[in-house]
């Protein structure tokens, strides 16, 4: 039942700045299963958003994906390229070895993205309907295999219509606005982003991502900056849409409340690495990594006034290559730190009770797995739900 749709192996994204090399994503591996919500939780600066942008291939100079593979389940493309191709493994295609054009055409058709701040992710001078219409139109054009280059654009500009978005696409955009429960979609489509409220604009953002009809939706902090009631609305909407379309959602957030209400599995990210990965209930009930525990202790409990919030002291480590500690990146903030922690860099290992609950901590009890975390292109079963769970 749980087949992966994206398999990420040893992904490394670096930024080459004047300060030095920043290891924003430092060799992470995970699967996103079909129809699941995988959530990545972590503090600001832990590399969550860069992970999402890497999946979309939206990393700009001075950043670069330097290593790793992103295998995407795309039987058509795999068949088209043939099994002999290095970039093909069964029904999976390695996005990293695709040409830029083929790669780009997957954004907007198979992969969609919701951005953190809809106020800045919509162009202020174009109406919302137009912008969603563009997403619909570009999906349609890619599906028809049409090229759109400077020549086509100039022809468009010279023609009387001089518009990229066809009427059908605009109508579909109105339909999408309706689908995300925006009242009066026909009128709202003709309004500019600054005429929308924050919650409504985030809904429009969701509609824009849906325009691509994505197999995987990458949601980068979709609820940050919204009122609690509106947050709940957006989460409900995402859950509904996921149930309707069967897409997978890669949810980036720092809000644990949001995670527990929607995510099937959760990954705890810190210092460019995953410290823990497993089913949401399992991770939150029995956190195996001290950092996860620390995060949970930061959660206030509104029903219990005596509940003491324990902040994690210190700051997120610098991701600069030359400043990164040799051992565990969490070592200097960790309450359970030992000397060994500062020397050994832990890798994700399955916990004894649940095989699909992985933890990266040398003090955590781990199953007697003899090998370290596999980085090969073959699917390690423990990475996805599909692996035999010990508690089932």
């Amino acid at each position, binding site marked *: 039942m749980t087949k992966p749709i994206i398999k990420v192996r040893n992904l490394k994204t670096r930024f080459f700045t004047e300060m030095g090399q920043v290891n924003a994503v430092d060799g992470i591996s995970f699967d996103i299963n079909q129809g699941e919500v995988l959530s990545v939780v972590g503090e600001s600066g832990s590399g969550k958003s860069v992970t999402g942008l890497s999946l979309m291939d939206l990393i700009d100079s001075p950043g670069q994906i330097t290593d790793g593979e992103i295998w995407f389940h795309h039987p058509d493309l795999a068949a088209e390229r043939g099994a002999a191709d290095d970039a093909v493994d069964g029904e999976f295609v390695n996005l990293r070895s695709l040409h830029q054009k083929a790669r780009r055409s997957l954004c907007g058709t198979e992969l969609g*993205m919701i*951005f953190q701040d809809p106020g800045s992710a919509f162009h202020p*001078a174009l109406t919302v309907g137009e912008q969603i219409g563009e997403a619909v139109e*570009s999906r349609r054009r890619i599906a028809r295999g049409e090229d*759109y280059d400077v020549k086509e654009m100039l022809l468009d500009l010279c023609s009387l219509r001089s518009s*990229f978005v066809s009427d059908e696409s605009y109508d579909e955009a109105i339909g999408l606005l309706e689908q995300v429960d925006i009242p009066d979609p026909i009128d709202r489509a003709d309004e*500019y982003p600054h005429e929308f409220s924050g919650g409504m604009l985030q809904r429009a953002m969701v509609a824009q991502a849906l325009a691509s009809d994505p197999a995987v939706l990458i949601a980068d902090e979709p609820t940050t900056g919204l009122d609690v009631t509106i947050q709940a609305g957006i989460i409900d909407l995402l859950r509904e849409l996921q149930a309707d379309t069967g897409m997978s959602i890669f949810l980036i957030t720092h809000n644990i409340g949001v995670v527990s209400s929607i995510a099937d599995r959760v990954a705890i990210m810190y210092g460019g690495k995953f410290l823990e990965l497993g089913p949401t209930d399992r991770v939150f009930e029995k956190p195996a990594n001290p950092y996860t525990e620390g995060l949970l202790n930061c959660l206030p409990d509104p029903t219990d006034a005596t509940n003491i919030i324990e902040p994690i002291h210190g700051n997120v480590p610098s991701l600069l290559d030359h400043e990164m500690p040799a051992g565990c990146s969490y070592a200097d903030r960790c309450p359970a730190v030992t000397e060994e922690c500062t020397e050994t860099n832990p890798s994700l290992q399955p916990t004894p009770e649940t095989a699909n609950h992985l933890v990266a901590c040398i003090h955590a009890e781990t199953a007697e797995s003899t090998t370290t975390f596999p980085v090969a292109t073959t699917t390690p079963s423990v990475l996805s739900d599909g692996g035999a769970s010990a508690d089932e």
Partner: protein
Amino acid sequence: MREEVQFFVSRSLQGIVVIWGIITAVFMFRFISPTNPARLIAPDDASEELVRAIEIDLGLNDPILIQYVSYLTGVVQGDLGFSYSTNTPVRGRIIQVLPATLELAFAALIFAVIVSIPLGIISATHRGTKIDSVANLTSLGGVSTPNFWLAIMLVLLISVQLGLLPTSGRPIGLGEGIRMLIFQANIGGLTTWLSHMILPTIALGTYFMALLFRLTRNGVLEELGKEYVLAARGKGLPNPLIMYRYVLRNSLTPVVTVTGLQLGGLIGGSVVVEAVFAWPGIGRLFITSLNLSDWPMMQGVLIIVGVGYVVTNIFVDYINSSLNPQVELA
């Protein structure tokens, strides 16, 4: 539509106030001048009586307020007075030389825009490469080269040394060239016009081109970092479309503003270039009048340039508001 009408009406009313201010200021300038126009007009050996008579004839002995009111009523009716040196209507003389200046100003404007905007885009998208460095260096040169020096160097190199283009003058206007083409099927008029246009256009437009290049490059660089550009790529939009619809649109706002301001500047600021190329335009007219203390002529020129500024600025505001819906027409 109603908004637009309202905008133009209210801005025109404001414009009228500004123009009234210009006329008043220009009128006041005359009283700073130490020269007595009557003496300039009169022959060198004229008697005091003759000078007095001319003064009375010109109305110079009237109270200032009366002179002011009569000048203002004249201007409102389109009468800019008579030239002291030629005793012909100022308006007629300005209308005669205005096309030469307008042609030159627009040519310089078009040259600057056509070169600077694509260059700015290329430079910004190839940031840090050789193309960018060369373009930056060129624009630095363009901004820091005085246009009279550039004009002289162009003439020396291209006209005198290479003999490719004529050194100066404007033997034929654009309108005349077109008329020759249509009625006599003779393209010679237009080519003559063009060959005389090229050097003054480059001399006048280079500074402006370099300025617009910098504005475009910075604007595009800033826009490229915006999240909506990332979002546009994320939804699969083709690159040229992102560049046109998402990046250029916002980065052009300062370009349009400066273009409008500079157009007025090009009309008024072509004085030096016109002098170098013996261009029979409004700038040269102004210099000649200045040398002769021909106040009515100078006043007329200043008023026309001022009106040009005001009108172009109204249009610039209008274009800006249509580029950006957040700027409301007001």
